[in-house]
C-alpha cells in the first residue's frame, strides 16, 4: 500500500484525533537478511471520542501499531498525525501526557516494589504537575476513585490485589495525567470472564465521563464489537477491512474477516451449528517472507492469479466501509 489518497481509510475531518498514513514498522531479526514486517503500510484514523477496535490473530501487528502510534517504537515509514500535528519525528514529551497506554498483563506491568499510590503518582512526579504533597495525594485519590478503588489501597502493593483490581490500577495510572487518548492493548485478555465484564464496563463509563478516545486492541471479537464504534481487521501487518462495528459483523466483505467471524464459538446451542462456518486451512505465513500480492491469498478460497501479482488497495465499498480485496471488483 502506498500513501496515495485512495487508501487513507477516509478523508481527515475536523474531529479526527489520530491519523496514521502508510505506517510501516519493520524489525531486524538476528540471523535473517530480510526484516520482519510487523506493520506493513497501515492507514487509519480515529475520531475524537470514538473507540476504534483493532482485531487480528497473534503476530498480525495490532499491538505493534499501538506502540508505534505512541512512538514507543520509531516507525520505519509513514506518518502519524495527532490532533492535526505530525508527531512522527517530534519530541514526544508534551504528547506523553495526552496519550497513554494500558497493557495486557496486569501482573507484569506494575512494579511489584512500588505502592499503588506511587504507581499512580509516578506520572505526576515525572511531569511535575503538582505544587504540594496534598495536591499529589488528591489527584491519586481521585484517579483511584474513578476506577473503583479508594485511598486505603494507596499504601498497598500490587501483589495484594486480584487481576481485575490490578488492571484497574493500570487504568488509574494511565488516567493520572488526564489524557485524551488511551491505547488499550488487550486489557482484558488476562482476566477471568466475570472480571472482564467489570473492566469493560469501567472503560465505557470512563469514556463517557471523561470524553476519552480509545484504540482498543483485542482478539476477543465479541468484546471488540461491544465496545467499539469502528473496527479494523488486520492480517499479517496490513489492514484488510475497516467499518462500523455492526456493519463489519453483519456485512463482512473481506474473505479473512468472513472466516474470522464465522468461527467465533457461540454459547447459544441454536446458533452454534452455523452452516456458513469457514475453517481456514494452514497458518499465517511468516512476516519475514510474506507471500507476494495479497498476503491472505495462501489461505483464501477465492484466490486467483491476480492476487499473487498485485497487492489489493483499500477501497470504499459502502459508507465508511473499506476493504482491500481484488474479489470486490469481480476480478477474483
Amino acid at each position: 500500500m502506498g500513501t496515495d489518497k485512495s487508501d487513507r481509510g477516509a478523508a481527515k475531518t475536523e474531529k479526527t484525533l489520530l491519523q496514521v498514513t502508510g505506517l510501516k514498522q519493520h524489525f531486524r531479526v538476528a540471523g535473517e537478511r530480510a526484516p520482519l514486517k510487523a506493520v506493513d503500510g497501515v492507514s487509519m484514523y480515529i475520531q475524537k471520542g470514538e473507540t476504534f477496535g483493532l482485531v487480528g490473530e497473534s503476530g498480525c501487528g495490532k499491538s505493534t501499531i499501538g506502540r508505534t502510534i505512541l512512538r514507543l517504537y520509531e516507525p520505519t515509514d509513514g506518518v502519524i498525525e495527532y490532533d492535526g500535528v505530525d508527531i512522527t519525528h517530534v519530541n514526544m514529551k508534551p504528547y506523553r501526557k495526552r496519550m497513554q497506554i494500558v497493557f495486557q498483563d496486569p501482573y507484569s506491568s506494575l512494579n511489584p516494589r512500588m505502592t499503588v499510590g506511587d504507581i499512580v503518582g509516578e506520572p505526576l512526579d515525572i511531569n511535575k504537575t503538582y505544587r504540594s504533597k496534598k495536591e499529589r495525594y488528591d489527584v491519586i485519590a481521585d484517579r483511584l476513585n474513578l476506577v473503583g478503588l479508594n485511598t486505603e489501597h494507596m499504601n498497598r502493593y500490587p501483589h495484594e490485589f486480584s487481576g481485575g483490581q490490578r488492571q484497574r490500577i493500570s487504568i488509574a495510572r494511565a488516567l493520572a495525567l488526564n489524557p485524551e487518548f488511551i491505547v488499550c492493548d488487550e486489557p482484558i485478555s488476562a482476566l477471568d470472564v466475570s472480571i472482564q465484564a467489570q473492566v469493560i464496563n469501567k472503560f465505557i463509563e470512563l469514556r463517557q465521563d471523561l470524553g476519552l478516545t480509545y484504540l482498543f486492541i483485542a482478539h476477543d471479537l465479541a468484546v471488540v464489537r461491544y465496545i467499539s464504534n469502528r473496527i479494523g481487521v488486520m492480517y499479517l501487518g496490513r489492514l484488510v477491512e475497516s467499518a462500523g462495528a455492526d456493519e463489519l459483523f453483519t456485512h463482512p466483505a473481506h474473505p479473512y474477516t468472513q472466516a474470522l467471524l464465522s468461527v467465533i464459538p457461540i454459547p447459544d446451542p441454536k446458533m452454534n451449528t452455523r452452516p456458513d462456518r469457514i475453517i481456514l486451512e494452514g497458518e499465517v505465513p511468516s512476516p519475514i517472507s510474506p507471500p507476494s500480492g495479497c498476503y491472505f491469498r495462501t489461505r483464501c478460497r477465492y484466490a486467483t492469479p491476480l492476487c499473487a501479482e498485485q497487492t489489493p488497495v483499500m477501497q470504499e465499498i459502502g459508507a465508511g466501509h473499506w476493504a482491500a480485496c481484488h474479489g470486490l471488483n469481480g476480478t477474483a
Partner: protein
Amino acid sequence: MSADALDGRDHLLNIQNLHISFFTPAGEVKAVNGVSYTLRKGEVLGIVGESGSGKSVSVTALMKLLAYPGRVVDGSIWFDGKDILVQPSREMQKIRGKDISMIFQDPMTSLNPVYTIGNQLIETIRRHSAMSNSAARQRGIEMLSLVGINNPARRMRQYPHALSGGMRQRVMIAMALSCSPKLLIADEPTTSLDVTIQAQILALMKKMRQETGTAIMLITHDLGIVTELCDRVMIMYAGKIVESGSVEDIYYRTSHPYTKGLLDCLPQNSEERAPLRPIEGNPVDLLDLPKGCGFASRCDKCMKICLRETPPDFLVGDGHVSSCWLHTVQNGQDGRGNHHGNG
C-alpha cells in the same frame, strides 16, 4: 463407595465426594470441596469455571499427578473398574498415556524441546505396547497424518521449536490418541491459540471423537467452546459443582445464579449494547472458605440460609442439577442427595 462405582456399568469414571487441599505455609487451600460426578463411555463432558474454581486440580487428581503439597483429603475416584486412589505408581504409569491421556493448555511447554517429535511419539507408543521401533514409527506417522499434519514423516524428524502453536497442539493430540485411550482430558486445549487455529483444533477433536469413540473431558472457561463440543456441562465455583446438565439445560434453562452471572457478563454478539452485568466482587479466598454457599458473597439473590448452610444438589430437570437454596423457595422441592451424575 465401591458398590456405588460398580453400580453404573457403563460408567467409565465415577468420582464421589472428592476433596482436595493444598497444605501451604499460609494454611490449607481447599481447592476441591466435595465433587461428585460420573462419565459414560464415549461421552464428552465440559468442565467450566474461572481460575481457582478447582477444574484443573480435580482432573490432575484423577491422573494421580497432584503435586506436593496437594493431597486428596477425602472421596473416591473409580476409573474403568479400578480405584485410582489406591493404585500403586507402577500401575498408574500403565494407565497414564494408555487409558487416560491428557492435552495441556500450553503446547509450547508440554513437548520436550530436546527430543524430536518422532522420538516423543514413539516413546509414548512403545511404552504401552509391544511394538517394534519401526512399527511404532509407522504408527506415529499415521497418527500425525490423522490429525492433519502434512508431510508427517518429515515432521517426525523435527524438533518442537520448528512447529507453530497449532501444529504442536496437533502433535499433542496425536500423542494423546496414539494408544487409543478410553478417556482424553483436554485442559484448555485452545486457550493459547488464535481463533482460526482454535476452529481447526475443535474441528479435529470433533472428528477424533467420532472416529475413535474416546470419552473426552474438556476443561475450559469458554462457554462457546463447550457448546461446540460437549454433550454435558458442569459449572464449577470455589471447588464445587454448582450446576450440571446438558448444553441446552445450561444455556436455555439456566438455574444457578453463578451460571446466570457467567452468561450475563458475556457481550452478546448482536447490535444491542445493553450494559454488561458483571458478577460483582472477587473470587472466594480458598484459604478461608465462607460457611454456607461459596458464591453467596457475590450473589444478588443471597438469602440468610446461604450464609449458614451449604446448599444441597437439587434436581431441576431430567439430568439437570443445581446447587442453590433458591430452588427450595421456588418450588418447595427437596431434591437433596442427587449427584451431578447422569441421572
